[in-house]
């Protein structure tokens, strides 16, 4: 930032920098693409799109499971969607 001596409060804000993180090719792209491919695209309750401005789906991990926390703008449904690869049961406590 550049401060001008004769104007004590005049500080020139820095220019926005080009976005370096959201462009280009990275070594982690195959992993990124694999995860993105599983993102839910439709609300499990009303079937509306949850992509774009239709809602949001955020992936997080819980042990071996990838969980997609999802909110649907159309019907307000909120919940977790978990992709299941193998059904595993356990004895009750």
């Amino acid at each position: 930032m550049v401060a001008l001596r004769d104007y004590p409060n005049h500080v020139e804000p820095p220019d926005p920098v080009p976005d370096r993180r959201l462009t280009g090719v990275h070594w982690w792209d195959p992993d990124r693409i694999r995860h993105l491919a599983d993102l839910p695209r439709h609300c499990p309750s009303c079937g509306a799109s949850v992509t774009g401005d239709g809602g949001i789906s955020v992936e997080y991990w819980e042990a071996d499971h990838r969980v997609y926390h999802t909110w649907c703008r159309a019907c307000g449904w909120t919940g977790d969607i978990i992709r299941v690869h193998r059904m595993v049961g356990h004895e009750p406590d």
Partner: protein
Amino acid sequence: MLSKEQNEALTRVGPGTPMGELLRRYWYPVAFVRELDEWPIKKVRLLGEDFALWKTPQGGYGIMQERCPHRHASMVYGVVEEGGLRCGYHGWLFDCEGACVDQPAEPEKSTFKDNVRAQAGKAQELGGMVWAYIGPDPAPELPRFDVYVDEGFKDVGHSMLPCNWLQIMENSVDPHHVEWLHGRYFQFIGEQKGFLAPPAFQKKHVKVGFDPMEWGILKRRVLEGQTEEDDDWAVGHPLVFPYCMRVGGAGIDQMQIRVPIDDTHTWALFYANHHPEGMDEYPDQIYPTDYEYRWIDDQGNFIVDYIEGQDVMAWVTQGDITDRTAEHIGKSDIGVVMLRRMFREQMALVAEGKDPTVGFTREPHERIELPCEKNKFGAGVDFALAWLEMGSSRYSPALDTLKKLHIQAAAARGELPGQHNVDTPGQ
């Protein structure tokens, strides 16, 4: 992990973007009152747009687009008059509403000025800072949070950081970072440099909780050795939607303010009000003490031997706008997940022409009290002194005054420094 389009939607703050439209429903601090008293016009960048902010001869404030609508000279080099701000180039005069009220070079009977209007916002003073609103009319109320209006000694550290504001906000709903960044990492730095890092931060989180509330998200934690009866869980402290966090303890109330300047810069302020129990008079202040805290040294390395410096390192090294399509978040990050959903919900309300429902009010009021732990680690004055020495306050020109204030207050309470097992500020 987020899709690229969702990451873009959550991080872009310019006009016409979904997040930019949501953020334009809120007021932001853009200057210190002191600055406008020293020179009555200041250039301000907010949400990716440039403005001229000025103090009127009547004592109010105006904010308008930086470029004069005539031929785009900067209004920052204008003339302050009773009727508004006059462009230094050809003398066009704009009032606080953005109306062009004089074009001295045009024919006397010309109505040209009636067809010219500048983009103007609203500006007002609170807590020694000038706040601006640049969204659509009618403007909501400027929330008068306790920190800004309560009596006390006010101390504000600030710096411009080269990263998107959202990654700073996500840090506010990430309690686990405390035991690592300010715990283990601080301990490691202390071992290398030869000082004792505050042990309180090394305590393990047993449980974290997040509750949506009127003003944002209330964050709670139970640390090793604590129960749900302790203030850290029973009271907690809030992320104040959409760009602040409230923390404090031991007579210090602090608002951490993250003003989105543009997509890749955030003005990060630590606004503290010191009012320790035992004192009812405070050192005279015309203005809050304001100063820049350092976060990078002369060699370009992050300064990581104090709390906020560690946070800045984590925020900035994530990148200008962190790539959330490649992140791997877990169960311990559910506060972050919740915050993203809250932003999306509020963006949708604004897109539908409604007011946001979080962190927003149209009700006139005198003071808003936010929940915040008071008994932090039960450390009393030692907590306050550690806060001052291990936080951004170490750069304050008022550091000695602040220490004296807390020690005098402790004496008035019959408490002595060193009486407690010192731990330090929570985040």
